């Protein structure tokens, strides 16, 4: 995470310095408020429509020792669409601020081999058992978010823009489910009553209701400007807030949404 800040800070300093300079040299103009508003939305502004493909998942920062092997990983509902606007801070269009609205899927299906993985299995009557499981865990994350990015954009060269900043997300659909199978579950503690899962036996879990509704994080990326109005972008989003509510204890480590996003955008 600190690496991201290392990039941000110079970027922010640059922006402030630049806009301060711009202020000083500005010629006094007399325009009505309405004209000013019109100018704001017409001059030095750029609109973009984007579609993205995301690959990533909810992951602990550093794999805890409980997880012995990631046996499979599959992205799910990886698509997102976004509309945004970039307001350039001066006529040189070197630095700008971008915001917009994004509707994005955040999903994955993973299978892992675990040892002493603390979890909770439950049933539809609300009965729950917590304990330590050694065996295989399948996790399905299938979320949709409304996201507002707030990004600083640096027009670095003829072909490249660099952007970074923050995003704020609200969940539109929450789903975190899975099951444990082929292993041994010890109720309560690692020496608790033993239940073995063999063959088709599964212990189900559903932590969907424990997912946080709001999260925010960092975003950093680049876009490649083609000669036409099309651009290709790639960025990384990393949440600063964990996906579960703070009182959630059924998984012993914190998990964060970490996604790589690629796609195309059209500017107009």
């Amino acid at each position, binding site marked *: 995470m600190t690496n991201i800040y290392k990039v941000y800070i110079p970027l922010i300093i640059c922006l402030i310095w630049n806009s301060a300079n711009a202020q000083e040299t500005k010629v006094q103009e007399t325009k009505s408020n309405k004209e000013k508003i019109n100018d704001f939305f017409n001059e030095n502004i750029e609109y973009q429509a984007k579609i993205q493909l995301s690959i990533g998942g909810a992951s602990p920062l550093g794999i805890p*020792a409980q997880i012995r092997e990631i046996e499979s990983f599959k992205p799910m509902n990886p698509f997102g669409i976004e509309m945004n606007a970039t307001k350039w801070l001066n006529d040189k269009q070197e630095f700008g601020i971008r915001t917009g609205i994004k509707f994005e899927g955040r999903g994955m299906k993973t299978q892992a081999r675990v040892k002493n993985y603390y979890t909770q299995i439950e*049933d539809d009557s609300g009965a729950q*058992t917590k304990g330590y499981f050694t065996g295989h865990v399948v996790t399905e994350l299938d979320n949709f978010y409304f996201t507002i990015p707030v990004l600083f954009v640096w027009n670095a060269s003829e072909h490249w823009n660099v952007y970074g900043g923050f995003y704020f997300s609200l969940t539109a659909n929450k789903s975190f489910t899975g099951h444990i199978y082929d292993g041994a579950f010890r109720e309560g503690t690692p020496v608790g*009553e033993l239940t073995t899962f063999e063959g088709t036996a599964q212990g*189900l879990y559903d932590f969907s209701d424990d997912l946080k509704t709001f999260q925010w994080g960092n975003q950093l990326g680049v876009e490649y400007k083609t000669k036409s109005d099309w651009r290709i972008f790639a960025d990384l989003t990393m949440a600063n807030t964990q996906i579960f509510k703070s009182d959630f204890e059924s998984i012993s480590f914190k998990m964060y949404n970490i996604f790589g996003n690629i796609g195309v955008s059209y500017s107009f």
Partner: protein
Amino acid sequence: MTKKSVALLYLLIPLTFYACIKDEELDTDADIIEAYIPPEYLKTDPIITNTSVEFRVKSNVDLTKQAPFFTLSPYATISPENGVIRDFTTAQTVVVTAQDSKWKKTYTITFNVDELSTRYSFNNAELTDKDRYYRFYTIGSTGDKVYDWASGNSGYVTVAGSKSPDEYPTAVAEGRTGGLAAKMQTVYTSSFAAATGNPIAAGNLFLGSFKTNLLNTLKSTKFGLPYSGALPKSVRSYYKYKAGPEVRNQDFEVVPDKKDSFDIYAIIFESRAKDNFMYGDHDFKDPRNVAIARIPASQRLETDTWKEANFPFELVAGKTFDPDKEYVLTIVMSSSIDGAKFTGAIGSTLIVDDIELIYN
């Protein structure tokens, strides 16, 4: 971005994860897997639970000098060590320490020389396993508690959540003449047990032992304890029964026009050296069976006052009973007669007190 690089990205993610896998932590299992004493001492296989081992031994065994041997979870250690001679006139404990020495488990080791009782009044029950459910016991000749009766309660823990001991399939009720009685009730288990075809659990209580096997619940129940003596004439007990509203089958579908009933039966079967018990799915067809007593439909009544049931042992065709031979006896009670087929009515409740083998 080209297709190739997308594919590369997909490949890289699991690889990145793989690179960050930490070293494996030490094992935390601290189990006694098997328990051994000279086989000629034993009347039946040692009964091992998560925290106890019971050796049912012949009455001529000298309990003051015994050195049981235990096999343990990989890398676990035991104290006192295997082979140490101790006096097992009363229960002793051993501590099993996992490879990760933070985790230890104390086992109670008992040697039981008592013959099976011929009468049980269910007046002694205690909460066990973090006070979550009841189990019945009697006091043996050495003053130790003897757990002849087992139930599926320990298997229900996994799905019980915060249910109270009275909501478990096997619990206690007020006895016929004061004291306690055994209460068995048919309950809903869970959606994930339902996924494997066990949506309900009938309350049960039986002479034998129970070790959870989620794959096959019927293989969790091990019926039977060593029995020697005469062939009893009949089984007598007192009961109350209330059938639940709708009978459901193992797919949790309502079985129309069916009324639930309970079951009480006793089987005396031939003893053998290994696996000296009968699983819950025996269906009365085990070739070892010698004599069976089962409550007839005419005595399986719905009643909210105590009723007496008395039903005779009948020899299985072609079998004879030799009073000088070792046999295995089980008495099984269930709140739903088809409980072994995971069929029954949620809410069916059987209360039994004073079950007794009647001799001439």
